[in-house]
């Protein structure tokens, strides 16, 4: 435990160092505000504008979380479905991979044409982004089940269903959580991208407005909050992982 907090500590120290460097460079070169604001200016803007920003932030959090839950839920169900039905898997898995080759930025306007400006197209964008890491990670987790444990269950007379729910699924939990962590960070990105395409509020909207009026400081405020949100989501999922994955401390599976 102390080792982890120390590592986190050194990361924060390094980040602070970068901010100081940034601040110094901006001041020394007298870079204009509209080109690159100093960290202090960004912080001031974040504090001053938080009243306006707050609504956008909440809206994005809501969208990202909802998309994450829907995307991961569908992803996990898909993985279980494909794993339990190898024939279907053979047919559909390549399509799952292909689905990731559609550029979101191209797909999103189409979704708006089809589904309007409501919640649905946005959810589809975020789910599509979150879905893939979960499917791949879960499938890999299911496949990597320890063969000696599977052999034991077979000898003990377990049915395929029992083998899945008593062995393969819990065995894959660490993998599933790895996928979840990636999806969580993607979900915030997905939410922001979907908001660019047309929304009343959200960090994406705030960013577009800031960009078009050359408020680079506000763009950075948005960037920092997106990062903060991703890190927070990541942390929350790691906490849930620690509660859910038992008996497998580091280095001992």
């Amino acid at each position: 435990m102390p080792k982890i907090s120390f590592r986190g500590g050194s990361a924060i120290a390094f980040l602070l160092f970068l901010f100081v460097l940034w601040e110094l460079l901006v001041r020394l070169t007298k870079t204009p505000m509209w080109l690159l604001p100093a960290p202090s200016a960004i912080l001031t803007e974040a504090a001053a504008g938080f009243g306006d920003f707050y609504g956008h932030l909440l809206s994005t959090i809501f969208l990202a979380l909802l998309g994450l839950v829907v995307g991961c839920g569908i992803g996990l169900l898909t993985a279980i479905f494909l794993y339990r039905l190898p024939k279907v898997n053979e047919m559909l898995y390549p399509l799952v991979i292909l689905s990731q080759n559609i550029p979101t930025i191209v797909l999103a306007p189409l979704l708006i044409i089809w589904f309007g400006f409501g919640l649905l197209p946005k959810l589809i964008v975020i789910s599509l982004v979150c879905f893939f890491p979960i499917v791949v990670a879960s499938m890999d987790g299911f496949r990597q089940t320890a063969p000696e444990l599977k052999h034991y269950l077979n000898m003990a007379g377990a049915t395929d269903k029992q083998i899945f729910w008593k062995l393969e699924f819990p065995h894959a939990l660490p993998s599933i959580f790895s996928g979840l962590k990636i999806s969580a960070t993607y979900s915030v990105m997905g939410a922001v991208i979907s908001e660019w395409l047309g929304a009343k509020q959200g960090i994406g909207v705030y960013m577009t407005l800031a960009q078009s009026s050359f408020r680079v400081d506000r763009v950075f405020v948005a960037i920092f909050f997106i990062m903060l949100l991703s890190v927070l989501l990541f942390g929350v999922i790691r906490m849930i992982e620690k509660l859910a994955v038992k008996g497998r401390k580091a280095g001992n599976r």
Partner: protein
Amino acid sequence: MSLAIHQLHKSFGERPVLEDINLQVENGEFVAILGPSGSGKSTLFQLIGGLVLPESGTIELNGEAVNGKKGLIGYMPQTPSLFPWRTVLENVVLAAELKEKPDYQEARRLLQKAGLADYENAYPNELSGGMKQRVSFIRALLSNQDVLCLDEPFSALDEFTKLTMQKWLLSIWEANRKSILFITHSIDEALFLADRVYIFSKRPAHIKAEIKVPFSRPRDENLLETTEFFQLKQQIFKYLKEEISE
């Protein structure tokens, strides 16, 4: 008779693995199968466990043919194969759980007898090798089957732990008297534990000899130093020598 195997043949593709295996395990009898590594002993267990089908021959449990039927034996594998996310208590009831609601009271009683009462809520990664094997054996016991198949369960343990575990196994078995079929490649282990020993040849395996072990029970480690034990060991060693020279 609880387990009887008649004229069992099994091959994988062109290669025969088991040839004309005939063996019996009486009710409450401890039978060992002694043979070189890779002689098809584990294949025999897969046949008994119903995972694979024989080319010919029958496997009978309590007089009923059970070829290809799963879930009728208690099984203890070579590696403990405990589930890392389950506590010791949750692990020992696993085999029983596959069929019915497990009897936690009985599980606790057996854990206590095995000296594992304090570890009931521990995870397997906190246990030593010997403790894991105890948990694994209790899991097989709790599966509530008449016949237990033990596949070289102590082969990975050091000599000291092994002897402790063998004595422990005997003490538990004497209290329960299940029928046990025990695979091993150690002559000492077979003679120390079993009532009867079947000696397997190398692949394709057939039964070279069947030896009655005359030593009275309960047995302890002093038996290992007696002349009778040594003579019997020599006799078995002769069969093994034939296997090497052939």
